[in-house]
């Protein structure tokens, strides 16, 4: 495929607001996970909560979108001059030529959960203040971002659980390749809610301790929240030596089970192979892999087998979910941004919390940060329903060619 440029990007998660804080936390190997004290949740678990989300005030004209998910989206959009970069891109290409493709799994469902606590005792109806379209509906975050960024291009939310905000890169690529748009805001926003906290708990997939991906004692995920965005352009507005490019994409379905991966990671293998193929790269050309690495026994085992089958067992890799938690529908975009930082700073981030790496999984799992040339990276995102997506990113060199 023709490389696309991530001319601007930003991420906000429990390890930091914006790139500077995020990079500092990665360098310091600092986790943002803490004991759960979210809302009225009474579960013995650790979560990656972003502080200050609910102090975020949406503009007067966009009050119908007011919910934790869109507050987090706005907090994210405000970092690293991202909003200004998008406005410049819209001036260059035209507002109708910039698309918005965002991933989320639960949108603003927290508002609905709260509204159900305040049903009219006589009629059972929800409070008048409850706004379905602006909060609950999955499209809400793209609708909000599109209006907040003053864009008029094609838009959609991709809602394929934990692969959502990796797959937005694929949707945007096809839109650009077809000629409908010249640039796209892609990303993911997912925020804490009771549905996912109690839901993953019901599946016995939540760890009590901060999650330990790829550890022999791994026993579940830690749920986090994040807003991460990238401005994808066919031709970059500016091209620096360290501009990051999207080089390859692979997408597949397991066709196996709703909430468990295929044990050998067949679908994951197909996605990784396709990502390499579309990037025109050999397995040994990948310098680092950011694993999906949720920390559940079956997910990591399936992914480890798939990685070993496709990339061999020599590629350094880690899951950054030990730092950020599993940010579900935002994970693909958050980890794409972490990959971009890895490329720009020659930093292979350690997987935190894990101690005793499961040697049967065939991955060179990094327990400490590693410095060294990082020219090409792969990022895996897999979700419920057997939805798999792998992305390959690389650095560019002057002249706009990928390195």
């Amino acid at each position, binding site marked *: 495929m023709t490389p696309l440029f991530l001319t601007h990007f930003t991420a906000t998660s429990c390890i930091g607001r914006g790139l500077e804080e995020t990079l500092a936390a990665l360098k310091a190997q600092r986790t943002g996970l803490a004991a759960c004290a979210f809302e009225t949740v009474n579960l013995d678990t650790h979560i990656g909560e972003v502080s200050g989300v609910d102090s975020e005030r949406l503009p007067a004209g966009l009050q119908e979108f007011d919910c934790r998910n869109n507050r987090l989206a706005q907090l994210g959009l405000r970092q690293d001059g991202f909003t200004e970069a998008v406005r410049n891109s819209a001036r260059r290409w035209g507002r109708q030529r910039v698309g918005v493709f965002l991933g989320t799994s639960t949108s603003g469902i927290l508002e609905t959960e709260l509204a159900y606590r305040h049903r009219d005792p006589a009629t059972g109806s*929800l409070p008048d203040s409850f706004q379905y379209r602006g909060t609950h509906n999955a499209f809400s975050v793209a609708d909000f971002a599109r209006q907040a960024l003053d864009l008029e291009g094609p838009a*959609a939310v*991709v809602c394929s659980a934990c692969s959502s905000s990796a797959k937005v890169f694929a949707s945007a690529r096809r839109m650009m390749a077809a000629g*409908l748009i010249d640039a796209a805001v892609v990303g993911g926003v997912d925020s804490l809610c009771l549905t996912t906290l109690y*839901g993953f708990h019901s599946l016995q997939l939540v760890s009590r301790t901060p999650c330990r991906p790829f550890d022999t004692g791994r026993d579940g995920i830690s749920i986090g929240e994040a807003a991460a965005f990238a401005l994808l352009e066919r031709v970059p507005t500016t091209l620096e030596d360290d501009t990051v490019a999207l080089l390859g994409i692979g997408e*597949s379905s397991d066709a196996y089970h*709703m909430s468990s991966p295929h044990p050998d990671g067949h679908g994951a293998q197909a996605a990784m192979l396709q990502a390499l193929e579309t990037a025109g790269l050999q397995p040994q050309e990948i310098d680092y892999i950011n694993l999906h690495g949720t920390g559940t026994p079956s997910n990591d085992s399936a992914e480890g087998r798939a990685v070993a089958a496709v990339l061999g067992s020599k590629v350094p890799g880690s899951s950054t979910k030990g730092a950020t938690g599993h940010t579900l529908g935002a994970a693909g975009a958050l980890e794409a941004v972490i990959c971009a930082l890895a490329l720009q700073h020659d930093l292979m981030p350690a997987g935190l919390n894990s101690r005793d790496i499961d040697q049967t999984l065939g991955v060179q799992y990094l327990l400490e940060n590693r410095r060294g040339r990082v020219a090409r990276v792969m990022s895996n995102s897999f979700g419920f329903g057997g939805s798999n997506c792998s992305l390959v990113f690389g650095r560019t060199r002057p002249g706009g060619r990928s390195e």
Partner: protein
Amino acid sequence: MTRLTAYVEGIGLLGPGLNDWPSGAVLLAGASPYVPQATVLPTPAALPPAERRRTGAIVKLALAVGFEATSRAGMSPATLHSVFASSGGDGHNCHEICQTLASNDRQLSPTRFHNSVHNAAAGYWSIAAGATPSSNVVCAYDASFSAGLLEALTQVVVDRTAVLLLACDVSYPEPLHAKRSIPDAFGVALVLAPERRESSLACLTATLTDAPADRIADPLLEAARSSIPAARSLPMLRMLARREPGRVVIDYLDVQRVAVEVSACR
């Protein structure tokens, strides 16, 4: 102007008073009067019994129209890429979860939770059809059908591959129904291919436009079109049913709509 062209190989349809594509096409072509009746959802025979029991209305709907479209196209569903467009997923399941979380006992059923994902229909489809190619799941509120159509058409045009597009919406029970009033279940599936074949039904060419969306003169069909996101497809389906060449504008976002030129292939 960018034009996206694809060939329609098979159609599946299920909605109020619309029981499958051949009988629905007769009504949509105006050959007999349209009488809305509650949508009848079949049991998904293609799923193993254990999975079958767990499926909600949106999964039954998606599987019914998906298998109808692929069987009419004479194409193996296992090899097709798919695009699912839905505004709201499984409304009944969502209501049950919110009700449980608002109660004193927040213990959710694991099945309820995994069925709550917006891509539940896509997941069950891939299992039932044995389909391992990519499956994309999009939502754009009332614009969901056109968002799905553009997602599918760009995949056909850019990746030169056949794609199964499924647009499905079901109702919420109260109290959510009062906030999002989708009156009944409506699903449509189209198998779209990059090259014309002997069996192709029609050719679609889509462009973005600022023209307003077409309405339907029949007030009952117009009521379905304007109240169910997946039924925003009805003006296009009417042209396909009539097998007459023409242009139709279907609803999309505030400032952009999708114009589709339709021409019958046989």
